[in-house]
């Protein structure tokens, strides 16, 4: 725990993190009547009926072990709800599998996560999370005007007009506040400057863990030719058609490095041709793509239009669950129009097609996958193939399959014959260590050359880099946000006024969260779309000010009242049942 956080927990009246957690969590039961510390502008009414009293609400949180800062931020926000507004919200830390399961079943009042954009495109946030039938809308958010705009932006091919629609969506989300952001993450990373040339590194929203960096980074000496890095968890699934292959970055990062894609997000997250030489929209639902010449797979076979057509047809025919949203539901057919050119026919207009369809679908070698599926008997279920040293990946990306000793080491030699993105280094090695302390020490003693991930205390990594000559620290904001979602089906979260008041409270807590809990590693957040996505982020997203006092004003206007002990009650005519 960083010294800042330790001091913070002390200030909160606890001797340490563990004690602090217990002490703060304990407030939820002892302090149901504890709203007297809050602002003085509350409207106090005597003899209020019991059925109007706001009952206990559950804020599902990850455990402290899973993500200490996020858990502590939840504890603070819930404490403020109880003490400043008199709303008895209890932080309930659960294992992540329990959390997601309860979220899926709607058994929660609030929940907090870290969610990112899909390959730099806002569609995943706008539609999947907040559209009434969105696959990630477990919060029951349903706003008619928003629903119309969300689907409209998905079908708007004019980028400028789409930007306006996305901005408009953020405006509604700002007013309706189903989500309250805690912060935009800022992450520290570090690399060994005695082995890697400092001016050759490229930092993007994913830090140093991006294909531009790994292909352009230059070694300073022989030691720098093999880059050893960590992984936040050992890779477990390297089949690019499996849901876990493209989901968590522990798998997606190596898969992305071993495969080529027609489009990749550039250093600023803008979709840019990669394996595609160029592309042209013939009309709103027809796209032609020309492949670059001279590309080969790792086994020397040329990459042709047949491979692209095979990949998409394989997905359309077998419907891997991982590709339902962005390929099966979107693409009508794919045709070969030349040895190096293909035509995509879409079912309907789909604006994020370049980013989330072409940018997330790897090109599979037809000759290899046909054989692999036959050998394993998975012709109808290609996502079930167990990728291993016996059935390795053969693709065309800048890195090749080396050896995989699951849980211990995954080696990826550079594909030096890549026609346009051959890495300068010789090999990338993922070597997971079980603890954050061991990872820092591995950086210090030269066992690691670069940290792809850092999930420990940001300040401790900063201190380590400061005190170790061969370590260079880089900091970057990703395209995600840590935010708290409210179950808008449940009272009082079904009331927009209550959600707006919650926003006023959370906005005022952001300073504490960023500076005290995250040790300054974070940016103020107002919208679900991070400001690193400059083109899509609406900096005028409405937010509510004046902290607890502002929140009380909003609640008073909406008819909420308090008893003499500071407990909050629903407006007249409304109960929590």
């Amino acid at each position, binding site marked *: 725990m960083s010294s800042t956080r330790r001091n913070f927990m002390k200030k909160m009246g606890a001797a340490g993190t563990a004690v602090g957690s217990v002490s703060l969590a304990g407030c939820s039961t002892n302090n149901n009547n504890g709203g007297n510390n809050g602002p003085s502008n509350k409207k106090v009414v005597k003899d209020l009926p019991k059925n109007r009293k706001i009952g206990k609400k559950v804020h599902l949180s990850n455990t402290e072990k899973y993500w200490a800062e996020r858990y502590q931020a939840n504890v603070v926000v819930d404490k403020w709800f109880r003490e400043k507004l008199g709303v008895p919200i209890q932080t309930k830390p659960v294992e992540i599998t329990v959390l997601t399961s309860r979220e899926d079943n709607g058994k929660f009042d609030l929940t907090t996560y870290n969610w990112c954009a899909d390959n730099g495109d806002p569609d995943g946030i706008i539609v999947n999370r907040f559209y009434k039938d969105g696959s990630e809308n477990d919060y029951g958010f349903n706003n008619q005007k928003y629903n119309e705009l969300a689907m409209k932006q998905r079908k708007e091919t004019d980028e400028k007009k789409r930007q306006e629609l996305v901005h408009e969506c953020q405006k509604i989300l700002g007013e309706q506040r189903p989500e309250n952001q805690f912060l935009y993450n800022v992450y520290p990373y570090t690399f060994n400057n005695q082995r890697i040339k400092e001016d050759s590194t490229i930092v993007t929203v994913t830090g140093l863990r991006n294909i531009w960096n790994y292909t352009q980074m230059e070694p300073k000496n022989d030691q720098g030719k093999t880059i050893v890095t960590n992984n936040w968890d050992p890779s477990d699934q390297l089949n690019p058609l499996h*849901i876990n292959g493209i989901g968590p970055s522990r798998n997606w990062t190596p898969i992305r490095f071993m495969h080529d894609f027609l489009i990749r997000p550039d250093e600023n997250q803008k979709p840019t041709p990669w394996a595609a030489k160029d592309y042209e929209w013939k009309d709103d639902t027809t796209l032609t793509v020309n492949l670059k010449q001279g590309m080969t797979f790792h086994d020397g076979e040329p990459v042709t239009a047949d491979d692209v057509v095979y990949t998409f047809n394989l997905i359309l025919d077998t419907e891997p669950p991982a590709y339902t949203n962005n390929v099966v539901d979107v693409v009508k057919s794919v045709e070969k129009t030349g040895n190096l050119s293909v035509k995509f026919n879409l079912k309907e207009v789909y604006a994020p097609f370049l980013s989330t369809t072409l940018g997330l679908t790897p090109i599979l070698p037809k000759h290899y996958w046909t054989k692999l599926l036959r050998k394993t008997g998975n012709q109808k279920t290609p996502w079930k193939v167990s990728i291993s040293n016996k059935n390795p990946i053969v693709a065309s990306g800048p890195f090749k399959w080396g050896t995989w000793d699951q849980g211990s080491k995954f080696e990826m030699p550079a594909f030096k014959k890549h026609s346009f993105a051959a890495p300068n280094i010789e090999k990338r090695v993922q070597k997971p260590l079980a603890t954050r302390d*061991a990872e820092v020490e*591995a950086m210090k003693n030269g066992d690691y050359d670069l940290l792809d991930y850092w999930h420990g205390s940001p300040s401790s990594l900063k201190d380590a880099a400061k005190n170790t000559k061969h370590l260079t620290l880089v900091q970057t904001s990703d395209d995600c946000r840590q935010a708290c979602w409210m179950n808008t089906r449940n009272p009082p979260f079904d009331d927009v006024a209550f959600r707006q008041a919650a926003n006023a409270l959370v906005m005022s807590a952001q300073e504490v969260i960023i500076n005290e809990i995250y040790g300054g590693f974070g940016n103020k957040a107002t919208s679900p779309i991070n400001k690193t996505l400059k083109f899509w982020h609406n900096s005028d997203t409405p937010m509510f000010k004046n902290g607890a006092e502002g929140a009380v004003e909003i609640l008073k206007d909406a008819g909420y009242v308090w008893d003499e002990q500071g407990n909050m009650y629903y407006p007249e005519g409304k109960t929590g049942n």
Partner: protein
Amino acid sequence: MIEKRYLIRRLLLMAISMLTVITILFFLFRMVPGGPMSAIMSPRMSPEAKRQVAEQFGLNEPIWKQYLLYMQNVLQLDFGRSFYYSRPVTSIIADRFINTMSLMLTAFLISYTFGVFFGAHLGWIRGTGKERAGMLVVLFIRSLPVFWTGMVVLYVFAFHLDMFPLGGMRSVSASYTGNVGKLLSPDFLYHLALPVFTLCTYYTGLPLLLMRNNLLEVLSEDYIDTARAKGLSNRRILFNHAARNAILPVITAFAIAIGFAVGGQVLIETVFSWPGLGREMVQASLRSDYPLAQGAFALLSIIVITMNFVADIAYTVLDPRVSLGAK
């Protein structure tokens, strides 16, 4: 000596115990809150796609149907496929089993050899200052939490002196083929050294204390006096007459320890980033990866039950006075 009827009855009881354990495991994991869906499904998936995946894994079936299917597969030694790894459970367990056993068996063999020898020695020199000092050291080391010892060992020998690796099982430059090549490679042994040393500091205590206490009892027997009267050397009395009889409870402890060794040492595996079965069992439980968790715990139970049986058999071999099943 073992009676045939006893043997059959014992084997039947073992089979019933194993099936009971597997049944309990099946229902126990399903009673835990949460579920495996988060490990096998992306939030990006549509509800329809989620339903399809649940169907593929049979998670939409009533629990009794899932149970019958599972038992049917288990009887054919098919433990299913891990939700998380999408690989057969047996292949994942086999990988981790080798890693864990290479660590645990090495540690147990060293600990029990060392423990038996020095336990016998301490028993022999009972009442001396050396014995008291020896007991103090043993009890002190035994009372240290093993993960703490591991962290101290790691800090001193890896972080500070840079003599050993920080963790893991192999160096980046190491290359070997097959499990035998791996287990015999100097690089592997170099990585094995610190975790084994840590485990030995903890595990040596039990056989050492058992051996010492048993020896104290044996040394008061008449046949020891007879041996002395015959003018045999101390060494011969200790190792040929006393230690052989005192070692029986240590054999039982060793057999049971080997059974539990399959479960690995979660804390040590975590401290030393050792990809063993212990960590995998914990992770599988947390991820609600039912097939893997059930398979790993079932293996652990089967080996513990079997090793108990082996210990009983070993008794009859080591001590002719013991007979199983005879009236």
